[in-house]
């Protein structure tokens, strides 16, 4: 999501599942929705059946999505930016952009500072010693009042539009074919299909997932399509959008709630070391509007922050102690999971807790992960199922070849309930918070996760209360308002997340009345205050559990305008808005670009419509407020300033392990700022030893490493396999059903070969490149046949901004085996 927020202001799928039916063109690239999200994909088939929509699939493999596509074309793994850069060039060259939209709702007209530039694969500000950029030149030119200078004619050579045009001038159709291996005529057909949706009443939706994120430049893959969508005027409109299809049922919720090293709930940031006090921290977050008349909603940051601290520490967070600001840990570096395992590997991590997570199978380079886990003093796993991680110390033959007696880690395995045995809410990809109910008791002694976490905390707190210890205050003073302290209920916590009034606030216009009454639930985040009178666990979730009750449990199926939004089903953040930035679906006068699929409109006195306006409802179109209210500009960013580490425009870089050097700039072939730990450089292979490109993926019959525990799914896809194209199979003498070994610099796996026409050899930069497909679902626990962790093969390298590992493009070799080793 680190690419959507810098572009639009919020890091989430812009539209919603049901809205996909309103589209004219579905582009599936960087994902495989039919395979990974079949029930969401239904809205693609609906769009095709009822809106005459077309489906375009661009993927290294002819996937299940491609099986029902109108047009499919192959692409070499890891070259999406080259393809999309080519599309940007096509749109600009052929003037196939939604002009009114681009001019008014993006930063195309903004003037960029002198000093910004791009040469030979590097943007301005490169520091060779630090291997990083000084990003100060990637910014706007400001006028005397501090506003950005603009040129509405889009002709100034320093304006974003012209710089973009110049940047992508290198991405010719010939270059696209040379890098991506996609035949030029097919590429042009795709570009033309996309271009048709630049008409104001046409929309295209982009559905993507880990096929874009799991790269060393994942954020920029997504940015490239976000730019295409902005040029086409497809953001904020029905049937449009950047639809990030989250992988897991509540990964959106976990991210919204800030369960990451560097976040606080609601996309607030944890302070860094230099932010030594609250004043410094908040002073850096004033979010002053960069253009006249803009909302820049993040100006309310202090209200969200202080209310969060009140939810954390209750009475103990006061104005006098900076609302307990110093009780928050400060960040020196981001401690993402790759760094966690790096620290573990270095012996710097003593304890680790895995709650419903199986990192041994999920993260790159299993050998490194096993060595790292073996250095822990203790590991706690909390899961309804037996996981490989919990048994990392057990010998499972070739599948997990370890010596238990040499592993000194203490391991605890705690049984938790599964979905059917607990209540609570999950946030889906479309930002809907949906409540679910318990259907049966847990088996045996299994307990709810809430109870387990509460119990661990209560015992630790008890120890601090009894024997004291280091910096005990935040532990002792954590706000714990639950009726049964060892067993908080989901409802109690949901009320806390929504927020409540701590101290009554009198109405300034009529002191006999109360604006806010102590003890009541908040209606929404507009009521939050930064004086300590409100508490709110997660500001974007404010409105989910109000005095009207649990809004997440709503089950009204009505959809009065047939928009697919179901506005009163469950509850959606923010403020129940189903399509983000929906103000952009209207022209400057406030009337829908597409009268057939309306979301909101200006009725002469206010904004109204089937969706909740993502806007100030009383702001007249003539006031000129921009639709991207979270951005200080009020517009969306084609040029992202210094918000991403690689640069303000996406540039094609090869994967860390790639079969060719980057044809655009061979000296800066891979992403220069990708996340690589020095010790891992030696584990990268070259095309000389590992000539084939590998890519990992899910199959529809399975869900990561859980569904191999279920009998039915084990029956549907019982055994590990790899997919090999017919050409490579011929070369290697491999027939369908043969055993093969796939080897990378980091290890090898054995599996059955599926030989297919669906993976084609591609002509890339004058040579033939084969792709090997590696489904991921097997392991050494469960009901399928045992298999190898596919992550035995993958490289320990991450995206530069969000550290997502590069699972989608790396190098391997393949050989035929006469029989499996075990």
């Amino acid at each position, binding site marked *: 999501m680190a690419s959507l927020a810098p572009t639009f202001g919020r890091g989430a799928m812009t539209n919603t599942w049901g809205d996909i039916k309103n589209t004219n063109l579905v582009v599936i690239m960087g994902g495989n929705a039919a395979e990974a999200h079949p029930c969401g994909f239904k809205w693609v088939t609906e769009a095709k059946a009822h809106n005459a929509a077309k489906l375009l699939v661009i993927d290294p493999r002819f996937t299940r999505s491609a099986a029902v596509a109108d047009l499919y074309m192959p692409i070499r793994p890891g070259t999406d930016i080259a393809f999309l850069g080519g599309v940007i060039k096509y749109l600009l060259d052929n003037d196939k952009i939604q002009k009114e939209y681009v001019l008014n709702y993006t930063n195309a007209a903004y003037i960029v500072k002198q000093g910004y530039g791009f040469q030979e694969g590097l943007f301005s500000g490169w520091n060779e010693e630090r291997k990083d950029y000084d990003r100060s030149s990637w910014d706007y030119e400001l006028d005397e009042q501090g506003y950005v200078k603009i040129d509405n004619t889009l002709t100034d050579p320093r304006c974003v539009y012209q710089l973009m045009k110049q940047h992508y001038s290198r991405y010719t159709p010939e270059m696209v074919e040379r890098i991506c291996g996609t035949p030029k005529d097919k590429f042009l057909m795709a570009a033309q299909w996309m271009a048709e949706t630049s008409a104001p009443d046409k929309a295209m939706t982009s559905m993507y997932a880990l096929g874009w994120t799991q790269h060393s430049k994942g954020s920029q893959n997504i940015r490239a399509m976000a730019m295409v969508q902005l040029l086409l005027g497809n953001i904020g409109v029905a049937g449009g959008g950047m639809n990030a299809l989250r992988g897991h049922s509540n990964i959106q919720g976990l991210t919204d709630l800030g369960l990451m090293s560097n976040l606080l709930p609601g996309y607030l940031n944890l302070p860094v070391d230099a932010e030594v006090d609250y004043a410094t921290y908040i002073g850096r977050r004033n979010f002053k509007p960069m253009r006249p008349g803009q909302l820049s909603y993040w100006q309310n940051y202090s209200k969200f922050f202080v209310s969060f601290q009140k939810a954390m520490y209750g009475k103990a967070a006061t104005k006098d102690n900076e609302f307990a600001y110093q009780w928050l840990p400060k960040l020196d570096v981001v401690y993402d999971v790759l760094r966690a395992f790096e620290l573990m590997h270095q012996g710097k991590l003593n304890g680790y807790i895995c709650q419903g997570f199986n990192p041994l199978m999920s993260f790159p380079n299993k050998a490194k992960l096993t060595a790292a886990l073996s250095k822990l003093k203790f590991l706690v796993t909390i899961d309804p199922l037996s996981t490989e991680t919990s048994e990392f110390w057990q010998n499972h033959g070739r599948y997990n070849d370890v010596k238990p007696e040499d592993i000194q880690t203490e391991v605890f*395995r705690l049984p938790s309930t599964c979905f059917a045995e607990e209540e609570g809410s999950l946030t889906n990809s479309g930002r809907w918070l949906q409540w679910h109910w318990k*259907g049966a008791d847990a088996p045996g002694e299994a307990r709810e996760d809430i109870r387990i976490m509460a119990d661990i905390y209560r015992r630790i707190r008890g120890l601090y209360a009894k024997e004291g210890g280091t910096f005990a205050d935040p532990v002792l003073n954590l706000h714990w308002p639950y009726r049964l302290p060892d067993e908080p209920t989901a409802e109690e916590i949901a009320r806390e997340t929504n927020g409540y009034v701590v101290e009554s606030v009198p109405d300034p216009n009529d002191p006999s009345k109360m604006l806010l009454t102590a003890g009541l639930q908040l209606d929404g985040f507009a009521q939050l205050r930064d004086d300590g009178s409100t508490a709110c666990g997660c500001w974007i979730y404010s409105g989910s559990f109000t005095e009207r009750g649990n809004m997440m449990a709503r089950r009204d199926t009505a959809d009065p305008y047939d928009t697919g939004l179901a506005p009163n089903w469950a509850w959606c953040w923010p403020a129940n808005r189903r399509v983000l930035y929906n103000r952009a679906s209207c022209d400057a006068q406030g009337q829908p670009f597409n009268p057939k699929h309306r979301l909101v409109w200006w009725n002469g006195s206010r904004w109204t419509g089937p969706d909740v306006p993502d806007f100030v409802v009383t702001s007249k179109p003539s006031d000129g407020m921009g639709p991207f209210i979270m951005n200080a500009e009020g517009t969306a960013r084609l040029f992202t300033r210094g918000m991403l580490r690689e640069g303000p425009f996406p540039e094609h870089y090869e994967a860390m392990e790639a079969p060719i050097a980057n044809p655009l700039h061979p000296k800066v072939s891979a992403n220069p700022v990708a996340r690589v730990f020095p010790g891992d450089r030696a584990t990268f292979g070259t095309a000389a030893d590992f000539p084939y490109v590998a890519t990992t993926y899910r199959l529809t019959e399975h869900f990561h490493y859980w569904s191999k525990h279920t009998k039915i799914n084990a029956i549907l896809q019982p055994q590990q396999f790899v997919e090999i194209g017919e050409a490579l199979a011929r070369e290697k003498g491999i027939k369908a059903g043969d055993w093969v070994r796939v080897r990378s610099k980091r290890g090898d796996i054995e599996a059955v070969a599926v030989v297919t026409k669906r993976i084609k050899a591609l002509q890339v930069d004058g040579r033939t490149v084969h792709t090997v497909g590696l489904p991921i679902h097997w392991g050494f626990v469960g009901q399928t046949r045992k298999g190898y962790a596919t992550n035995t093969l993958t490289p320990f390298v991450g995206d530069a901004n969000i550290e997502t590992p590069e699972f989608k493009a790396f190098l391997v070799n393949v050989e035929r085996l006469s029989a499996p080793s075990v």
Partner: protein
Amino acid sequence: MGAMSVSRRQFFRYSGAALGASSLTALGFSPTPALAQVRPFKLARTTETRNTCPYCSVSCGVLMYSTGDRAKNSRSSIIHIEGDPDHPVNRGTLCPKGAALLDFVHAPTRLTYPEYRAPGAKEWKRVSWDFALDRIARLMKDDRDKNFIAKNQAGQTVNRWTSTGMLAASASSNETAFLTYKVVRSMGMIVFDNQARV
């Protein structure tokens, strides 16, 4: 209905008798009424509970059917799960994982009691919740007390604990997530991540 279960070979052996029965039927003496008894509808008196599929982010609505009516002396067991037709996204449909959720609930590899593996041990040992949680609390507190970083080298207050970390779930509820957040951050834990990256 006949409890007769004859193998094919037996059928041939007793063909005379079988044919006799067949002939009677053929002559119109049908042994059963001309209504077929289809398999009884197995959900007739089960209890229905609404839930959400725990797998992907489409978050399809599901209906769980359990035995018993939640009377004091009955223990419910889920016997069937299918799509919730009211749900605006899945409209009753499910994918092959959602349609097989019943086997997740009843997977033989579900964990049913806490277990402990001592350093160097080759096997798990069943332990009580109290043993496990007391030991975990002790290990965490000792590690925190020993390795907590109050100030960085520049003397700035940082109050972080970097020697114990946590990976949060991807399918746990928002309520579990927020409570986990409170617990983790109150201790100053900073090596903290979730499954968003994979």
